[in-house]
C-alpha cells in the first residue's frame, strides 16, 4: 500500500463537543496503516494538549493521557499554532511535554510538539496529501 502524508487538523476544545475525542480515535487507527501522520492544533484545538486537564466537575472521561501515548505509535509530529497559543494567553510551557523515543538514535527521548507560526503551518499543510479537519 502506498504511503501518503496525512494531517489531522484539530480546531476544537477537548470538551464541549465530541470532535477532539473522535479525531483522536481516527489518529490511533491511522497509526496502524503506516502512513506519514502529523497533527496540527489551531484555534481552540490548542486546549486539547494543555497540561493538567481535570474533568471530574463535568462528568466527562479525561482522555488527555491518550496524547502521551502517540509517541509509542510513531506519531511524533504535533504542530501547534503560535498565534493560537498567543491569542489565548498560553505558551509552550502550558502544554503537555509530549515526547517519543527515536529508534534511529538509540531510543533517545525527543519532543513531539513543535510550536510554529501560522505561515509555517500553512507551508506544512500544503505539503500534505490528505488533510482531515476536526
Amino acid at each position, binding site marked *: 500500500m502506498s504511503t501518503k502524508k496525512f494531517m489531522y487538523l484539530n480546531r476544537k476544545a477537548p470538551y464541549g463537543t465530541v470532535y477532539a475525542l*473522535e479525531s483522536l480515535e481516527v489518529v490511533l487507527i*491511522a497509526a496502524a496503516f503506516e*502512513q506519514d501522520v502529523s497533527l496540527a492544533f489551531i484555534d481552540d484545538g490548542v486546549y486539547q494538549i494543555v497540561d493538567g486537564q481535570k474533568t471530574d466537575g463535568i462528568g466527562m472521561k479525561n482522555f488527555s493521557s491518550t496524547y502521551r501515548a502517540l509517541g509509542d505509535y510513531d506519531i511524533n509530529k504535533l504542530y501547534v499554532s503560535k498565534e493560537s497559543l498567543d491569542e489565548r494567553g498560553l505558551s509552550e510551557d502550558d502544554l503537555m511535554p509530549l515526547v517519543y523515543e527515536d529508534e534511529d538514535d538509540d531510543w533517545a527521548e525527543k519532543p513531539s510538539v513543535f510550536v510554529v507560526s501560522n505561515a509555517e503551518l500553512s507551508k506544512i499543510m500544503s505539503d500534505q496529501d*490528505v488533510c*482531515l479537519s476536526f
Partner: protein
Amino acid sequence: MKISIQVNEGPYQHQSADTAYQFAKAAIEKGHEIFRVFFYHDGVNNASRFTVPPQDDRNVVNNWADLKNADGSDIDRVVCVAAALRRGMLDESEAGKNSVEGNNIHPAFRISGLGQLIEAGIQSDRLVVFGD
C-alpha cells in the same frame, strides 16, 4: 478523478450533509467517481432508515441511498461503527452483538471501522471533508 467524502454532521440539523450530497452529485455529473462516502461524528445519523421528513422537504437519507456513479455502480456508504454505536445507530449484526432489540441502519449503508476512512484517503485522489 476518484473522490471520497467524509460527512461529519447530521441531516436537517446542519447543511453540510446536504452540501456533501450536492457536491457528490455534481462531481459525478462532471465525470468523477465517488469511491466512498464515510459518515462520522453526528454524520452517522444520515443512515437512519427511520428518518421521516415532511412530504414537502428533501429526504436526505434517501438522497444518499439513491446516489449512483455515472456507470450505474453503487456508491460505498460507510458508517463508522464506534460513532454509530454511541449514538444508538445499529444494524442487525451490531444489535445482536450488543443484545439490543431492533436496528435502524438503512440497507444502502454499511457499518464498518475507521480503517475504511484511512483507506479511502489512501485510495482516492481527493478526500473532501464536510462539517463544522
